Every structure is written in C-alpha cells, then in structure tokens.
C-alpha cells in the first residue's frame, strides 16, 4: 500500500514537470548558469528546407586533420549566418563529410553558392599581363608548401614542359583585417579592405617595387579583377572592383570576412523538401497518430474493461512524458520519428497486454484480484524486459547507421524509438501497476465484479 502511494506521488511529480515542459509557451529553464530554451524542433521533412552534404574534394590529396574539418565547419556556419539564414546547422560526419541542414528553402540556393566555395582570396603578381575577369589561373599557392617569402623574385613564366603559366601569390585573404561593401562615385559596388600590419608591409613593399605592373585579385583561382599598380599603396588599404552587383559584392565580403576554408569542399548530396509538402506531412501524420491512438484506446477499454482504462491512462502518461523529453533534449522530430513514436506506443501497449493476459490467467486459477495483479505483473516482467532490450539494441544499431553518413532521417527514427521504449518501460513498471491498484481499491467488492476486469 505504502509503495503504491509513493509511486503515485512520483508519477504525479514527473507528470507535472512533463506537462509544464509541454506547455506551448514554456519560458525555458533559467537556474543559475543553466539557461535552456524549451521548444519543439521539427525536422526538414516536416518544415521544408535543404540538407547538403559536403565532401572534402577527392582531388585534394594533401593530408588534413579533423581540426581542419572543424575549422571548415565553423567557417561555413559563420558564412551562412552572415547571409542571414537562421538556424543553420552543420555537422561533421565521418572523416571527410560535413552535413549542413538549412531550414526554409527560399534562401538555400544562395547559401549553397557561397558555402561551396573555398573562399581562398589571393593577390597574384601577373607581371605585365592583364587577365580578364573569370579566367581560371594557376598560382604557386598550395603547390609549394613553404610560404612565399617577402621580396622573393616573382616566379613568372612557363614551367618547362607544360602550357600552364604558374603565377606567384604575394599574399592571401588571411591578411585581411576588415572588409566592407561600398559604392563608388559611379554607383558601382566595391569591396573595400583593410590589411593587418604584416599584410600592409608586404603590400607596401610589393607595390613600391612593381609600379605599372598588374596585381591580379583571384578568388578560388578565378580572376575577379586585374588592376594595374599606379602608385605604391603604403597605408594598408585597398578596394576590389569588378562589375559587382549588390549581391555578389555582399557574397564576396561574407567570404572574405569569415575566412577561407582550410580544405576544398565539393557538394556531394543535396536534398530539398518544399515547405508545402512538409506542412502537409506534419498535419497528416499527426492526424494519423490521433486516429490510431483513439482506435487502440477504444479496443483496450472494450476488451480489457477497467484494466484497459488503466492502460489508456498509462499510455497517455507515456505520451506526455515522451513529448516532454523530446522538447527538453531537444530531439528533432521527423516523419520517421513520428512513425517511431507510434511504434513505441505499440511497445508500451504490448507491455500492458502482456500483464493483463497474465493477470487473467491467474484470475482463472482462482487468485484474488490483488494477488492476480501482483503475480501477473511479476510473471510478465521478464518477457517485457528482454523483448524491449532487444528493441533498444536494434535502435542503437540504427542510430549508428544514421550517424555515419548524415541520414538524419534514420537517426531521428532510431532516437525516438529508443527514448519511446525507455519511457514505455517506465510507464509499464510503475504507471499501469499503480493506476490499476488504485482502480481496484476504489471498486467495492471487486471479487464479485470480475466482469469489470475482462473475465
């Protein structure tokens, strides 16, 4: 008796907390240093958006470290945020992939153009040659691992045996301190830059020694503009012009401001879900869940009578707690995730059914209701435990499968299934037993009313 009261108090406390978390306008938890926002996170398939998997360029043969991937990831994040795309999420997957999730497909197409570029800005000495904007050139950057020293003779000319001219890079975008988009007197867009002290010195030396030569500005090996050095630039400032529109100037500024990627990335996979389809899927799957739940609740109450009522209360508790956990962690809710939720609801019901069937057997053997309930629970427990652990194991394998290549869709399913089964074990152990005990003690002379218990 005492244990049941304790269990009931425990359930009520957990339920109260869970309901508070489930409240739509939950303010979040702010206790001391803990500041946690509570909200329902919807996956891309439910709200629309784009998932893109970037891979380290297979043609890039130089060794790179996991730290390089980490740096690339944070640069990608900053670039996307710089473009004003909210809630972008980049994750490293495996040893050469970065998975980006961009909700809201409208700006996604702009984003991909910016993020796929390595953003390697170079100031290249092209000697007496003026290069047309858009030309792809080869520079000695990256091919030579040693940093070009100051005042080194420009390696202009043809490499023996090849047709390609390799130009010398004077310095890279690393030397930029600040970048801004401005319009000049003609109303054209320009990108102004301020150099760091080292860069300013290199720039000053070079422009002093090479007046009337061309200093070509190159982004990702493509010529942006090829201005001629008229006078030495010693104050460490300059500007890049080259027929920019507002958008292209902004995109370049974003790339320069947030740095260049340490490793070249290529787009390996793109998935786009339109917002209309997402909303439609969300509505329909929730309706399906509701309909399924009502049918099952009716079946339980008609077939098992009072224990069925206890089961439905217990399943409702299960639903409230699971949803609260999803919001708390937060677990990204995807379509397969909702399916996983439905299946773990099935698991939770299975535990109840196993207990009730055992209980009926014990009742037929002439036990009293209370005895039958205790025994039924005890006998059913090993099969509930063992069978649910098997599901937990499979969902862990699924989770691993989903995490290795960025199929967040599979991962979401595995996670909801795993958490759902864990909660269903809890509600089966504590919930159903307590609720049923309460119901039995509330009924007068229950032994005379076995019909109420489905016999």
């Amino acid at each position, binding site marked *: 008796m005492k244990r049941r009261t304790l269990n009931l108090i425990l359930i009520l406390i957990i339920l109260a907390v869970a309901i508070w978390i489930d409240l739509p306008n939950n303010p979040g938890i702010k206790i001391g240093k803990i500041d946690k926002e509570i909200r329902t996170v919807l996956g891309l398939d439910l709200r629309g958006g784009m998932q*893109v998997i970037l*891979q380290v360029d297979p043609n890039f043969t130089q060794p790179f470290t996991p730290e390089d991937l980490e740096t690339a990831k944070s640069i990608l994040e900053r670039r996307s945020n710089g473009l004003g795309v909210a809630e972008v999420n980049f994750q490293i997957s495996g040893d050469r992939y970065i998975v980006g999730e961009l909700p809201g497909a409208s700006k996604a197409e702009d984003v*991909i*153009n910016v993020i796929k570029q390595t953003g390697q800005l170079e100031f290249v000495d092209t000697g007496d040659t003026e290069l047309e904007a858009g030309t792809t050139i080869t520079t000695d950057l990256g091919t030579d691992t040693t940093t070009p020293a100051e005042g080194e003779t420009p390696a202009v000319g043809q490499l023996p045996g090849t047709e390609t001219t390799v130009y010398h890079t004077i310095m890279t975008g690393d030397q930029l301190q600040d970048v801004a988009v401005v319009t000049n007197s003609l109303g054209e867009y320009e990108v102004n830059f301020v150099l760091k002290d080292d860069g300013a010195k290199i720039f000053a030396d070079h422009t002093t020694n090479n007046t009337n030569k061309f200093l070509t500005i190159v982004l990702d090996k493509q010529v942006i503009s090829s201005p001629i050095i008229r006078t030495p630039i010693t104050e460490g400032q300059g500007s890049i012009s080259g027929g920019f529109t507002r958008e292209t100037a902004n995109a370049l500024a974003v790339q320069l401001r947030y740095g260049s990627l340490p490793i070249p990335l290529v*787009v*390996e*996979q*793109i*998935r*786009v*879900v*339109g917002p209309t*389809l997402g909303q*439609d*899927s969300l509505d*329909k*799957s929730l309706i*399906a*869940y509701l*309909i*399924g*739940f009502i*049918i*099952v609740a009716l*079946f*339980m109450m008609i*077939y098992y009578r009072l224990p069925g009522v206890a089961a439905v209360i217990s399943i409702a508790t299960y639903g409230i707690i699971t949803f609260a956990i999803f919001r708390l962690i937060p677990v990204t809710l995807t*379509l*397969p995730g909702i*399916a996983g939720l*439905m*299946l773990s609801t*099935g*698991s939770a*019901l*299975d535990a109840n*059914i*196993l207990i009730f*069937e055992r209980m009926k*057997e014990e009742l037929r053997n002439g036990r009293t209701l209370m005895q039958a309930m205790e025994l039924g629970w005890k006998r059913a427990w*090993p*099969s509930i435990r*063992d*069978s*649910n652990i*098997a*599901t937990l*194991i*499979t969902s862990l*394998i*699924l989770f*691993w*499968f989903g995490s290795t*290549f960025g*199929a967040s*869709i*599979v991962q979401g*399913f*595995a996670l909801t*299934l795993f958490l759902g089964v864990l909660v269903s074990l809890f509600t089966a152990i504590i919930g159903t037993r307590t609720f049923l005990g309460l119901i039995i003690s509330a009924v007068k002379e229950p032994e005379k009313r076995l019909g109420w218990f489905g016999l």
Partner: protein
Amino acid sequence: MLNILGKRYLYFLLSLLVIVPGMVVMAIYGLPLAVDFKGGSLLEVQFSTETIPTVEQVVEIYNQYGFEEVSVQTAEGTTGIRNILVIRSPDLATTIDGKEVNADAMKNILVADLREVANDPNAEVNTFSNVGPSIAQQVTQRAGLAVALAALAVVIYIYFVFRGIPHSLRYGICAVLAMLHDILVVLSLTAIGGRLFGWQVDSLFLTALLTVIGFSTQDKIVVFDRIRENTSFLRKLPFEKLVNHSIVQTLQRSINTQLMTVEFMLLALALFGGVTLREFAVILLVGLFSGTYSSIFIAAPLLVVWENQEWKTWFRRTATA
C-alpha cells in the same frame, strides 16, 4: 488444446509461397534501388494545374543537357490531382561549356525549363535529392553492415538471455532464421511493389526493415520466454507439447498486440499519413505481421524440428509423398 505445431510443414510451405514469387521478381528485375543507394538525382515538381509536361518533353529537356537514362512518373498531389512529376536521373553535377555546374544550379536550370514548357511559372519543387557516387557506395556498405550487425546482436543477446535453459544457442539461431524469413518477406513485397507501384529502396525502406528486425525479435522473445518459463515445471512433457502449450498461452497476447494495436496504428498511418509515409507504413504493416507470424509458425516449429532432428525423416517423407 489447439494443436498448432502439428501442421508445421504447411506453414513452411505457406511462407515459401509468399517469398518465392518475390524472389523470382527480384532475380529478374533486381531491387528498385533509390538514389540513396545507387547515386543520382530525384526531382519532384508540383505544378499548379493538371497541365504538366509530358514524359517525352521532360526526357527531351534532360537529354538536351546530356542526361540519359531519365525516368519520369506522375503522382497525385495533396489535393488529389495528378500534378506532380517525379523525375529520376543520373547525378546532376555536370559541366556545361567547360564550366562546372553543381547539382543545385543544374536543378534550377531544369526547373526553369519545365516551368516554361508547362507555361506554369508557379510550379514548385516538392523534394529534390542528389546523391553523389561516393556517398551512395558508403550508404550501401553501411546498410549491409547494419543488417548483419543487428542479426549478430540478436543471436548473441538471445543466447545470453536464455543461457539458463538447455540448447540456448538454438533459440538464438531459430530466432535469426525466422528473422531472415521476415527480411525475405519484406524484400519480396518490395520487389513486387517496385514492379507494380514504383516503390523504391531508400533509407526509409532500410529503417522499416531494421524496425521489422527489432520487433520480430521482440515477438520471438515473448514466445521463447514462455517456453523458458514452462521448461522449469513441465519438464516431463514432450518438447513438442511444451512448445505448443507455450504458443497457445501467448496467442491472445500476440493477436491483441499485433493485430489490434500495432497494425491498427500502422493502418491509420498508411491511410491518413500522407503520401510520403504510405510505402513505409505498408512495408512495416506487412513486416511486423510477418514478425508475429514467424514467431508462432516459424521460430517455435523450427525449435521442435531441431529437437526431434526431423531432417533425418525428410527424405522418407518426400519419397512416400
């Protein structure tokens, strides 16, 4: 008492009748692999009216940019009109006039052309996936590994859980054989569904398959658990009787859990859950049913076949038949 085990060879035959046709279809046409596993692109465009480009028009647009092997299907939208084009093609990342064009940019060019042909500027991209060859290869390897790992985990786990009773390894192996049965049923269904309704084996399918494996195991354990429990006090009973008794005892639970709850949930999902989840729900529906069926009619009978070492009489059986 209901004698379930007596007709065990009939159940095996019934399962073969379900599995073999699917396997034949699979052997001839292969599994309909989606872009997730073989690479390539999938573009779904929804038009505002029923006037959508014809298959020939779509193929022509794709051919123009050098994409061969294009497959086009139409689908019903949320409003019930056939205004969706589902186009499958090779990887869209390409080069045009010596310039590299990424898959996303290529998609935009194609969609613009489709809009023009249909004279429908409001046509909208519902979904778009483009999977490069290296990811597809990795996914396929992982998928195989995931299924193998799940099977191995099940054998070890059941062996461990039933270590207290004689021949516990048998239980694990019989569970995996029955699980294999479920996988084959699902594959068979998908192969036939692929021919009839254009189903595709994608990562959602794999999710369904692995779920079937998980729940199939869960079901087997419930039946085996009853055998385990009965072994301790019904030792004198012949093994076949004991297993039969255990099956009958868990029958009500199997029917209630599977047919009345889980299958109803999945049916609701298949009927009301929208197009995206329909295929997934149907595969789960059949797979989980097969999981319950195989616990009663495959896994437990196999235990008996093994215990009686019935293969010694198989030859005689066929000879007299």
